[in-house]
């Protein structure tokens, strides 16, 4: 029997038009810029930090630090977990209007669920809320 979260579903309606929407990506797949600090995979409790990825990032400058899934495919094409170039294609074809100014990568493995839920998650939401101009967020895991 699967246990469902008893928290209410944080459903925010979207009553807009995708062709007028600005889209951000938030990924738990451990994605970050090669010149940013990697996530701390040595800590068995996980890493509660996150990295902000700019809109104009060259996808070849991104990498994955995560030891709880096989990221060989993401190493050869980051878009399989962080679809930034795919999002650019959708902008080009007019499916969406704009790419958000900021995106976020974090390492979605933690033994500190409460700290992740009550600390990291709202911090990421705040980061997206201030200055990214995102109307909607696409979330991905590993």
């Amino acid at each position: 029997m699967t246990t469902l979260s008893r928290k209410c579903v944080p459903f925010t309606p979207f009553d807009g038009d995708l062709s007028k929407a600005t889209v951000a990506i938030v990924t738990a797949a451990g994605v970050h810029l090669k010149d940013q600090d990697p996530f701390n995979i040595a800590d068995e409790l996980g890493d509660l930090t996150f990295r902000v990825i700019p809109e104009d990032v060259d996808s070849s400058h991104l990498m994955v630090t995560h030891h709880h899934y096989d990221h060989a495919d993401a190493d050869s094409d980051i878009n399989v977990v962080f679809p930034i170039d795919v999002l650019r294609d959708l902008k080009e074809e007019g499916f969406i209007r704009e790419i958000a100014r900021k995106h976020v990568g974090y390492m979605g493995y933690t033994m500190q669920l409460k700290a992740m839920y009550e600390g990291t998650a709202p911090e990421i939401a705040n980061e997206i809320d201030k200055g990214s101009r995102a109307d909607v967020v696409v979330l991905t895991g590993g």
Partner: protein
Amino acid sequence: MRGVPTVLITVSPEVSAQMRPPRALYPKGFKIGNSLGRPGMRDLQRTVLRDALTLLTQNTRPGEVVTREYAEYGEQYEPPRVKSK
């Protein structure tokens, strides 16, 4: 802080469903590490991302994970199961 609408692309639908995401897409049979498809499959990646975004405009049930099939992905994988207690 105002809320921002989200849509999740998950390859662990049972695990994700436990957290009752507002909107979620499970591309059936995609393995962990392949949320959008395989490397270089840009057409498929675009299709999956369009489908995920389109859930924002549809009358989905909050907490439910929507499953879609993508034949072009090729070999399918079994998603991780939630261990029963």
